[in-house]
């Protein structure tokens, strides 16, 4: 659902409060809404104090890994000996995820303000905002907002730059993103060294997701306790989260709810449920890289970092992909695998070859030529592709395959046994 629209009563509108208000995109409009007050306040504070507040708020990374943001900032050297950098990961490319896009489209200044606060906290003088190449409209909005805010002098000594990606999923991986900023091929780097020790240009670097940083001004303005209070469940998951819901629901779109919100309510209340006459079959709760949940798991799942893990998946980026009972799970999983095979950076053997082979096996099953042994082979391949490579792209390809075979095995077997009509995989 596009903006503007009235939020659903069950939403907790914090980040998305001004979505749809064209005026909020301007510096003047943002200031009118109380914008840049948090930054002005932060710049008068000791960096360590800012980090402490963010730590207390319980804010965790919204890009997928859910790492505590304040803790991440605290890894930066206290005593600054080299230039420090902040990278903003706005390369939102996880299939099923489109929340950062809306933040940049509607509240670019929230991101800029949050980024500047973070830069102050980690003593960085330069911020690189790495924006997905396909995001043409968000790019234009961000460019304008940055120009206006810079002209207004709100950032003090901090310099912010926009850097445009060129259309590679892997450049959303933090170290690949840094290579890309440096003008190199977007290959993930071996860790250690971690970015806080040697990141972009070999200097201490922190990298945060757009949604994470957009929340920071509010944390400062309303206090850590307020943010921490925005939780329905685990004290380890606080605040609100934007969920991008796509697939078989009546009202797909972005929804902002507090941590711990039931996934069932998100799908059936906020999104209006499945199309008429259909029932829920499966759901990928956190972007294409996380394991698939079946109906029971989905309907019992609480949307916070711990709740989703409890059901065997991950909160990830909050990209919720919904499948109703008309869905061919084998086909969907093949499409995911094909995506990863296309996007593998080709460094690690297991990923380069494994994602492509996985795709070929799935295509063959769909075309009616599958063998019974193919399922064990897929699982064994997935095992080889999990936890053995530089980054997690290969793991991400394996996750839906493993969970898919585990939970929807019959659909695979039907293709293999010839009980289901082959489909074109071109």
């Amino acid at each position: 659902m596009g903006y503007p629209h009235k939020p659903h009563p069950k939403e907790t509108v914090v980040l998305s409060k001004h979505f749809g208000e064209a005026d909020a995109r301007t510096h003047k409009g943002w200031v009118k809404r109380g914008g840049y007050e948090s930054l002005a306040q932060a710049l008068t504070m000791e960096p360590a104090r800012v980090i402490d507040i963010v730590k207390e708020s319980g804010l965790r990374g919204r890009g997928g890994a859910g790492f505590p943001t304040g803790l991440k900032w605290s890894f930066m050297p206290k005593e600054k000996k080299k230039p420090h950098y902040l990278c903003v990961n706005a390369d939102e490319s996880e299939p099923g995820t489109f929340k950062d896009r809306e933040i940049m489209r509607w509240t670019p200044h929230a991101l800029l303000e949050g980024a500047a606060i973070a830069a102050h906290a980690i003593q960085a003088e330069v911020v690189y905002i790495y924006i997905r190449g396909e995001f043409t409209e968000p790019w234009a909005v961000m460019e304008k907002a940055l120009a206006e805010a810079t002209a207004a002098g709100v950032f003090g000594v901090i310099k912010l730059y926009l850097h445009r990606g060129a259309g590679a999923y892997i450049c959303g991986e933090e170290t690949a993103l840094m290579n890309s900023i440096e003008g190199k091929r977007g290959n993930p780097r071996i860790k250690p060294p971690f970015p806080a020790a040697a990141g972009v240009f070999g200097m201490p670097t922190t990298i945060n997701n757009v949604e994470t940083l957009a929340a920071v001004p509010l944390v400062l303005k309303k206090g850590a306790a307020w943010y921490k209070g925005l939780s329905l469940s685990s004290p380890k998951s606080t605040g609100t989260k934007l969920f991008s819901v796509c697939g078989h629901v009546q009202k797909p779109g972005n929804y902002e709810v507090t941590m711990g919100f039931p996934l069932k309510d998100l799908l059936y209340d906020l999104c209006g449920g499945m199309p008429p006459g259909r029932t829920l079959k499966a759901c990928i709760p956190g972007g294409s890289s996380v394991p698939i949940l079946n109906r029971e798991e989905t309907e019992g799942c609480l949307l916070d970092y711990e709740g989703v893990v409890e059901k065997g998946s991950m909160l990830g980026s909050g990209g919720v992909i919904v499948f109703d009972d008309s869905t061919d799970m084998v086909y969907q999983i093949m499409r995911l695998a094909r995506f990863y095979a296309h996007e593998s950076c080709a460094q690690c053997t297991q990923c380069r070859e494994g994602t492509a082979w996985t795709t070929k096996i799935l295509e063959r099953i769909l075309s009616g030529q599958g063998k019974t042994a193919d399922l064990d082979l897929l699982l064994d391949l997935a095992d080889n592709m999990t936890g053995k490579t530089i980054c997690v792209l290969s793991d991400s390809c394996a996750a839906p395959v493993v969970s898919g075979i585990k939970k929807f095995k019959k659909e695979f077997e039907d293709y293999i046994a010839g009980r289901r009509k082959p489909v074109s995989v071109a």
Partner: protein
Amino acid sequence: MADELVNLTIDGVPVGVPKGTLVIEAAKQAGVLVPHYCYHPGLPVAGVCRMCLVDIEKAPKLQIACATQVAEGMVVRTQSPQAKSGRMGVLELLLINHPLDCPICDQAGECELQDFTFQEGRPATRYSPDYAKRFNPVEDFGPDVLYVPNRCILCTRCVRFMEDVAQEPVLNVSERGDRAFIGIHSEGRLDHPWAGNVVDLCPVGSLLSKDFLHKARAWELDKAASICTGCSQGCNVTLDTRENVVVRVRPRPNLDVNRYFICDHGRMNYRWMNRGDRIEAPLVRRDGELHATDWDEALDVVASRLRGAGGAAVALVSPRVSTEALFFARELFRGHEWSGAFQVVMGEEAPLAGVPNLALRAERAPNGRGAELLGYHRDYASALAAAETAAVVLVLDEPDIAVRTAGKLVYVGTVLPERARDAEVVLPIANVAEEEGTFVNRDGRVQRYFQAKPAPGMARPAWWVFAELVATLQGGGHVATAADAFDRLAASIEAFRGLSYPQLGFAGPR
């Protein structure tokens, strides 16, 4: 340096290594070779092939030995079921797009993909023959390098060599996923003077030397440690011979001289070692013509000419013969008013940017420094002038020298040039591939080379020829081996004092 050692065990073997050592290097010290492809000690770590997966106690998952530093008390297992299965998985994946064309591949027999697959790979693939394999045509990368993309495992050693060592980044990884291949700059060529190293670095048969293409199967080769004669750098090399023909020169690692590399000039500088127009028997002048004879007569003739003789003796020697030969060639003329000279062909210097003090040197001879240490000088013109009036002139393996002399000309060499037909005596000697000896490189480093093939006919090492003459004329006993020859040299020349063949070993003075 009193670096503190870090203690760890690898497959049950305790080792102590300096802090910062990589597990893969520590394993070597424990006698364990962790299978690997992308790792190479002469290149920056890439950590991409994932072949060196090992089990490290307390680590949550398998780690790559090439990018993991040792830690005190670390327990590494390369043979745990998890580690073996992880590596087996990598091998299977490396082979799915591989053409398996070992029977026609130059690398077969010295291929790390073959070796590790035999060692710990799957007996059969599960990659159905229904699936197509990646195909890309062979590319001409440079003067001596072919790229066979179908065999490539994308370890990126070649890319890293050109980027970080040669510092001429003409190669990259192009494309993504399983479409990836090694690309070359659209206007670039792999024609850097050190580019040939990518062929050695390639662990599979993907980068091939045109020069070596289809010349031999790896198992037909015999190998001998040698020293490159291409310049004064003294790079350590291996001479590969097939049926006593030198067919390839490859670098032999020596961290003090050439690390893991040699230049293309040195790599291609071997064909002369196989020349067919060699002198195979000693020749003596009789009735105005040279006649073949045996060593006894030939040495007798030279000895009789030199015995009791005096006057000026001029030696025109090659800076490509052994230090031992140069020593005894000088000893021979003790009773004479001796002078010796050599000349060195000069060329362009071509440094390898990423390695300090490593270059194809302008001075294109391996033993100029050795000749200098033994008293030979570089004023060749004056030596030639002196030769005209000298009583005896010795020419040592310099076939292109236009020497005119009123005295006796003794020519000692590998081949017989037209000009040397005026010689009283012609003595056939072995070339560098056919004998043992030493060279002294530009930094004064004395290095041994070893015999790779037999000398033709009756040709003998030059040090033996001169040592025999010295023994005949001056006494002091026969010299039976190259080691003895070197000992005699070391005993009388200050710069070599204290050195011996065993002490020099394969890598030079310790």
